[in-house]
């Protein structure tokens, strides 16, 4: 009786001590997290709720929001041709630029991987477009370079090809932005290079001895081992490509033209919110974007079971 009481008390005191130790830093943590907490509440979570509410209203910032239910969402998918167009443009952009960029990054990384001399210099040079490519300066250069009398057409004229104004032609304008994105394959390439360093050279040697050619070795050794890195790059590129804005804005001079051929989703959202002040509609578009990105990321994650191989047999 007494012994069990004593042990009971001991257990309790140990438990409270453990709890105390576990939360030993509540005060200090609050201090260190204070800026982040304020930001989380007032700049992230609060605004998320507000934007969800606004997405069900008509709101022009000048007058109070008026409730319209699902109107914004139904308009988007039933009668707004520009919205459909912006989806089409964005899907095309993502579907072309992401795979081409990753394949290019992988090929160049393969070329650089095999103990080549001057790797550091090449890596630096290939990274420069990524370093500078997000700037307005480069987007303006692109617009000038691919214009009717720009650099590309002068070069093509030297070999006798008469080419169109790439930026002003609705057929090609989007692909000039795709090209700008693919041009910036540097950071994906560096991630691939880091991944390739992990591949033990014995694998390659052993299969070469067994008579596997370079193509077979690539598909049966390099690619499977690299698949987690490819997966990571794919997810990152997918998320950022869906949100692409600056390049389309500068190259089309804010219009999404010619004939809405470069009207990216973000660009249309910006125009709705800040040119036409349809903030309710723009908020609804933002939530649709979140869902779109979420669904696509989820699909990639789901598909990863089929093609991503982890060294430890897929446990992680």
């Amino acid at each position, binding site marked *: 009786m007494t012994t069990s009481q004593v042990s009971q008390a001991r257990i309790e005191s140990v438990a409270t001590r453990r709890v105390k130790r576990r939360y030993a830093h509540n005060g*200090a943590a609050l201090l*260190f997290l204070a*800026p982040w907490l304020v930001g989380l509440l007032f*700049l992230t979570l609060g605004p998320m709720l507000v934007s969800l509410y606004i997405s069900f209203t008509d709101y022009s910032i000048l007058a109070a929001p008026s409730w319209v239910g699902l109107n914004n969402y139904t308009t988007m998918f039933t009668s707004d041709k520009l919205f459909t167009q912006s989806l089409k443009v964005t899907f095309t952009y993502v579907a072309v630029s992401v795979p081409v960029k990753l394949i290019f990054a992988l090929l160049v990384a393969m070329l650089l991987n095999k103990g080549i001399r001057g790797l550091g210099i090449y890596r630096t040079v290939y990274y420069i477009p990524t370093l500078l490519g997000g*700037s307005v300066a480069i987007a303006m250069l692109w617009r000038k370079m691919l214009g009717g009398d720009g650099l590309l057409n002068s070069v093509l004229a030297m070999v006798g090809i008469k080419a169109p104004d790439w930026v002003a032609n609705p057929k090609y304008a989007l692909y000039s932005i795709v090209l700008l994105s693919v041009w910036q394959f540097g950071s994906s390439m560096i991630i691939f290079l880091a991944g390739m360093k992990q591949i033990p050279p014995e694998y390659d040697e052993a299969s070469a001895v067994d008579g596997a050619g370079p193509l077979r070795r690539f598909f049966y050794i390099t690619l499977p081992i690299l698949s987690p890195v490819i997966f990571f790059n794919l997810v990152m590129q997918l998320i950022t490509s869906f949100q692409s804005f600056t390049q389309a804005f500068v190259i089309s001079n804010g219009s999404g033209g010619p004939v809405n051929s470069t009207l990216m989703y973000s660009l249309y959202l910006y125009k709705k919110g800040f040119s036409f002040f349809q903030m309710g509609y723009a908020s609804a578009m933002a939530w649709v974007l979140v869902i779109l990105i979420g669904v696509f990321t989820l699909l990639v994650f789901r598909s990863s079971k089929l093609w991503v191989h982890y060294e430890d047999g897929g446990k992680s």
Partner: protein
Amino acid sequence: MIGQRNSTAWVVSKHVLISGIAFVMLYPILWMLGSSFKPGHMIFTETWFWPQEWNWQNYMNGWSGIQGNPFSRFLTNSVILSLGAVLGNVISCSMAAYAFARLNFRFKAICFGLMLMTIMLPHHVTLIPQYILFNHLEWVNTYLPLVVPKWLATDAFFIFLMVQFFRGLPKELDEAATIDGCGPVKIYTKIIIPLAFPALVTTMIFTFLWTWDDFFSQLIYLSDVSKYTVPLGLRLFLDSSSQSDWGPMFAMSVLSLVPCFIVFIVCQKYFVEGIATSGLKG
């Protein structure tokens, strides 16, 4: 096959291929650099980048500015903004990261989960309510909407980056300091921060680059031309662009890229490490 791979011909042709691709890739930048020294009418008639003579006239014209604002004003504005953002991110994100990496507190798991979620969240969702908030505070057309969020650790990616780094630092240091009577504040300032230099530098570099190149938020919040930053100022050149204006536009474009380039050259080590270990996008 193996023999062929190691032969001199193969190595040489590989180098030719790699430098060929590199040259084609860099050519647009070289062409812009060269064109910034050419008189306007030469820019679109010459395809070779090297200027026949080096002429600084474009730089002087560009520097004297546009719409009554000297280019130096845009540069100053961008520098102030970037410094504010860099300081804010380094301080607020390292503080939050220290709490996540080293302190035990209530709701830690929930907080950490929320932090990870905000990394993935597209900023479009918070964009309009934030604009409404800043509009109420009468912060629109000031730098506050661009700087204050950085002091509130909204770039959660950097918190995550630093948490990972802090976790790699030996815990014995903290324990020894605790025995010596140091509290969390002292441990953070005297032990963690000095040791976390590489992670802090990576955060500073990428905050600088992203703020310097940021276009979307600056476009939304700044409307006075006198408050314009470099990206916004540059675009004014495009608006007024007849072919004679290409020269000054290219000259100022080149100038706007110089800070990024210097940061890159000086901190190259941190770039490659930062990208390879955490997938930072440049």
